[in-house]
């Protein structure tokens, strides 16, 4: 006889989030996944009471460099995070009940002048999380690994996969 967890597993569907995009689900039987974060940040947002989850895959820290241009808000942390939060509230979540987990921000070998998107993203997320009073319950950032993540929308767990290593849960 199949276990409850395997029955749940069979019913789960997966929503994929591309780079510079976000997705929300109010269906507990959903995974929200994004591949290969690299130096980008993947941020999960989860309202446990209402089982509403979201995942943002942001590439760059700030939209300031592109002032006056038409931008894709989820591409940047400072425009993407407010967008996700307001969409979650519209979907029924309560801001005070949302918890965040943050992943990615991989960094190349030490350099003072080039290719620092990973560290800039992490710094910007830290700043924004303070300013916006985000409840950040897990940090799995930096290092030299390319992370793929999957938010389990009935628990808020995040399944993390890196090349050549077994999956683990945060």
């Amino acid at each position, binding site marked *: 006889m199949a276990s409850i967890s395997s029955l749940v597993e069979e019913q789960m569907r997966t929503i994929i989030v591309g780079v510079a995009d976000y997705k929300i689900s109010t269906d507990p039987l959903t995974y929200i996944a994004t591949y290969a974060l*690299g130096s980008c940040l993947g941020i999960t947002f989860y309202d446990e009471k209402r089982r509403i989850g979201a995942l943002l895959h942001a590439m760059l820290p700030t939209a300031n460099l592109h002032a006056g241009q038409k931008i894709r808000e989820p591409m940047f942390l400072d425009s993407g995070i407010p967008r996700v939060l307001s969409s979650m509230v519209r979907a029924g979540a309560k801001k005070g009940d949302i918890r965040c987990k943050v992943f990615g921000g991989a960094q*190349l070998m030490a350099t003072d002048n080039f290719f620092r998107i*990973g560290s800039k993203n992490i710094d910007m997320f830290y700043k924004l999380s303070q300013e916006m009073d985000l409840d950040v319950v897990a940090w799995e950032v930096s290092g030299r690994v390319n992370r793929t993540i999957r938010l389990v929308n009935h628990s808020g767990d995040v399944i993390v996969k890196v090349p050549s290593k077994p999956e683990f849960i945060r």
Partner: protein
Amino acid sequence: MKSAADFQTVVEMTRSIPCAPAILPKLLKLTEGSSAELSELEMLISLDTGLATNVLRTANSAYFASAQRCDNIADAVLRLGSKTLYRIAATTLTGRWLVHPVRGYGWEPGDLCRHSLCVAICAEAFAKTTHLADAATAYTAGLIHDLGKFALAYANFSALDEIASRVPDEFASWREAELAVLGYDSAQVTKALLENWGFPAPFISVGFYYHAPSEAPEADRAIVTLIHAAKHVATQLGYGVGVDGFYCDPDEAALKAAGFKEAEMDAAIPEILTTIQKFISPEGEINFI
């Protein structure tokens, strides 16, 4: 895998992979030539069913199509022009080769193809702004820059696991670990493959020196530095990056000498990403055209 003979084995094994991009150098030469060579170009494309199909499909796509449907290669060659033809050929031929399932580097199927495509698109974008190389040449150089890693993975060496286990504790960079464990590195394999296929010297320099453009011959240093920059930006984007990806050393001296600036590279990323997303879906599927 420690002797020089093993290096030859890797190169020889790679010869047996179907769809090698061996006709690319000839196509490159023809697409640089005059209209008198169009018939030869048409014949070369017609010899490869997959390539001919992609050329016809593109000629009839919404972007290129006119009132009249294009149903033969000769018309398609005229409609698309040599630059577009070359881009299609390079992507189709290299991409088809790179999607063979291989083990190693923690890659998922098609990962090296995804990453190489991103390097190619970054290289093309930087070529247009820096003028360090012709955009079509930069695109192709991006596609082929790391073929040696594919060859090593195709050879299915357990040595790749040993390299992964010794980085970063014993060796700071992946290349140092390759040299210590294998006795040679993937750049040497790339160079041997490109030489075997008759690629022009700048491509061979890209394959061999892209890790350290300061060491490249002066004549090729500009394009090698361009690919070095494109490689690092593409790595940050994450597409297809394996366990080796973040263990490479930026050559700041070469980047500065070539005029690269971090803010300008970062500012180019949104447009680069939009181009990449035309080729790679959120699910990771690759669309060559």
